[in-house]
């Protein structure tokens, strides 16, 4: 490690410990790191967006390529600044409306495709049979139906419907338990990486 890297990693190690100190309780070191990173991150993203998005998406089309059509989104974006004024703030609704309109228009078909159709197709694509795979498929179908019934809003969950919805929430809970258990590995790995970083820094500082 060069001296520069050693100093850099020293700062990194100090900030790592500042954040970890939060586990004990809120303290000035954590607060320092928290505010520092909020400032640095905002500065970082502002400049990143400026160079990688504003320049190629706004400046170049308008100023260099004279693509007049880009005036529309630019005006819509600048309209957002009316929010600085109390009197004219309502004008910004035009841009917000455009933003939300595009978002929800795309969402209708996207949600139907990725969430509904793909899942539906995957559920019904395999046959039920008397071997292990076939019986598992039968169980999957029953479990999917029960879980769907749990999400019914306009029918009282009573009688047979209530039994199905109860089975449904049990299945959902198994799913959540599995999801929780599976994630532990990845989260531990993150902490291990920090520990290995600190260890490497100690070795570089004293042992290396």
């Amino acid at each position, binding site marked *: 490690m060069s001296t520069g890297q050693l100093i850099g990693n020293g700062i990194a190690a100090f900030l790592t410990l500042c954040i970890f100190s939060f586990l004990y309780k809120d303290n000035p070191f954590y607060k320092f790191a928290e505010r520092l990173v909020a400032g640095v991150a905002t500065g970082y993203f502002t400049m990143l967006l400026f160079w990688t998005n504003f320049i190629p998406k706004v400046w170049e089309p308008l100023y260099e390529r004279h693509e007049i059509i880009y005036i529309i989104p630019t005006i819509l974006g600048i309209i957002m600044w009316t929010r600085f004024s109390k009197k004219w703030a309502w004008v910004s609704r035009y841009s917000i409306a455009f933003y939300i309109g595009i978002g929800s228009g795309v969402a209708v078909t996207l949600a139907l495709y990725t969430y509904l159709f793909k899942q539906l197709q995957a559920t019904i694509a395999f046959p039920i049979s008397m071997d292990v795979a076939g019986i598992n498929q039968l169980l999957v179908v029953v479990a999917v139906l029960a879980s769907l019934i749990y999400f019914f809003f306009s029918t009282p969950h009573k009688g047979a419907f209530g039994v199905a919805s109860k089975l449904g929430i049990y299945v959902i809970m198994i799913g959540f338990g599995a*999801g929780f258990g599976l994630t532990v*590995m990845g989260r*531990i790995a993150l902490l291990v990486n920090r520990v290995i970083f600190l260890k490497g820094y100690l070795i570089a500082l004293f*042992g290396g």
Partner: protein
Amino acid sequence: MNIFEKIMKVDRRWVYLAIGLAVSIPAVYELVATYILKKENTTINIPITPSPEVKKVYDFVESMKPGEHLFICVDYDPSSMAELNPMTTAIVNQAFAKDIKIIFVTLSQFGPGLVEQITSSLAAAHNKVRGEDYAFLGYRPYPAITILAMGVDFRVPFPEDYYGTPLDSLPIMDGIKNFNNLKGVIELTSGNTADFWITYGNGRYGFPLALGITGVMSANYYQYLSSDQLLGIIPGVKGAAEYEELVGFPGDGKAQMAYQVIAHAVILVFIIISNIAFFGTRKRKGGMEGGAQ
């Protein structure tokens, strides 16, 4: 307050401390072993039982004959290196040791650096020559289109390899037109490229496909095992450690496994203690109804 109630209400910081210690033990052990005891091998050896889905991938590579071709797609970026690099290394080690020829491709923007890093170190260790024993074709965006094009001919998306050599001048590509000339594909990914390989790769061209994925992703891909669209899955660090165990090259996967096992054990012990305490308090409350609290 009896002991059970105390355990139930234990300050969360004791839990934090336990996890912190659990994760530090292997690191401290390594430091002590290396610098104080001056030991050579500092990896904590944890017995590992390979799961069936990992064993299947291993058996598949093991069944290949020297000189046959394996295709490895490195589709992750540096942020998931910790989980996926160990399995890539283990597979490449196994294949090189068996004189299997490997073709690498990446569909991730940051993939080329990773592939170069892996191939350069492992090829040297196994005395393998680029262009003869392995090839790196490079990176292309648009995974679906690239996979479909490779199904026709690797030369369509990759007329030249990553280093600018035309594919026809690479000895390893002699007689290798598309997926039909390969034994199979192993896709290592931290993102949705796995879906493309399943739909457009295995779905369209029917080659044997195995996945190496991060632990968080694994829940979503087990379904393809039962439908035979995948021959096997290597999930996260644990899968990598199992693979290393099978191959017999202990690496970063096994090294990380020590941390994982201890941390998981600590959490499991906490859950058990918490439940014993829970039942303890319930019983006592039942027995001491109306009594002093």
